[in-house]
């Protein structure tokens, strides 16, 4: 007996974002951090901030912290994205 059975998946093609062009250098760039605010992020992003400025010549490093670490970034943070040259989003669990 042949079974004809239905597909239980969403059958939706997940929209694939395109990778932004890679930066040739971080020299003089503004780098944004989106932190989930968990305890482990403080040391991690603090260290990364120093690295980017001292070792890679970043002009500015901007830290933004989500209001809810289990939800997407708040709208005001997302609105800032175009002003940054690159973004680092860390879990920091």
């Amino acid at each position, binding site marked *: 007996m042949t079974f004809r059975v239905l597909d239980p998946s969403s*059958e939706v093609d997940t929209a694939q974002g395109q990778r932004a062009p890679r930066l040739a250098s971080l020299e003089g760039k503004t780098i944004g951090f989106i932190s989930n605010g968990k305890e482990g992020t403080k040391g991690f992003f603090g260290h990364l901030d120093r690295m980017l400025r001292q070792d890679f010549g970043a002009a500015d490093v901007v830290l933004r912290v989500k209001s809810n670490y289990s939800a997407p970034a708040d709208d005001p943070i997302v609105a800032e994205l175009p002003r940054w040259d690159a973004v680092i989003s860390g879990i920091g669990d």
Partner: protein
Amino acid sequence: MQLTSKVHEASDIAAVQELYHSRGWTDGLPIVPPTAEAVEACLEWAMLPPEQLIGVEPVRERAVTAEKLAINAVMAGCLPMHFPVVVAAVTAMLQPEFLLHGATASTGGCAVLLVLNGPIRLELATDPTFNVLGASDRATMAIGRALRLVLINVLDVRPGGIDRSTLGHPGKISYCLAEDEDDSNWLSLAETRDIPKEISAVTVMTAGAPRQIMNEWTTEPKEILETFAAEIRANMRHYSIWPGNYAILVPKQLREHLDNAGWSKRDVAEFIFERARIHRHEWAEVGKGAVVRDRGDTVYPAMESPDQLLVIAAGGPAGGFGAVIPPWLGHKSHAVTMAIGACLDCGPPPA
């Protein structure tokens, strides 16, 4: 009825199982083949067209239709009469305050707890007594499993993918129970959350594993409830300090002592609200001194108000046991109660 899901063919029942397992469409257990006939029977019972939009998962903007819910419900072993509960539960889970994406993706590894109230408990022959947190009856097992299959297949919540749970817990297979309304003088959980008694309802909560307590050496309500409060305090010390929807299950034996003393659910919630709180400095006693800092004297309550405690009458008739079910991320994810097949705040149709 026009179903639009892709149709797959398999030569026999074993081939169906292998097909679904190989595609990552199961929870590891065998499934009931979701034929068009079985799926249509669910949709007809709930009077839903296949394309009916049940909701949209707000983070990934994934639409959830009645047809996809029905397919997964059939796979889980649901009968058509179970399906309206699945629809109501998923609708509730898609409310923003439930924080579904966070709950299903979190390393915290919570499950979705479902509690059934109202006439549907009897219509579905649920058993809220013996082994209520285990495999107590067909309906609650199948409905709870259906939710997990929906998460797996419709929202791609698979371990190591969207699901980043460090441990998870057995409730992630099925975590559904009915409340013992017929052997209790208390208001039902749904009634305490503004659903009339004659309306069937489901409450969903992002929930950790149950923590069992025992106190069969007293009939004094405050002593009984102190044991529940202590278990909540233990969870706050060992797991998470954040307040939110804790649930407690009170089986018959302890419930009778409370009832004999005239304690209502509200009395229970107010007592536990006062007793279930810890100082931050207590974290130092359980190896978490590094995060006490200068806030050691700050007091953290387990709930922001007594209303956040979900008091549930359920469990077998004998034994001085009870259970505390802690929230996943209590201050961010809130329990949602939804009427089944009824709209309580709908106005009359326009003239």
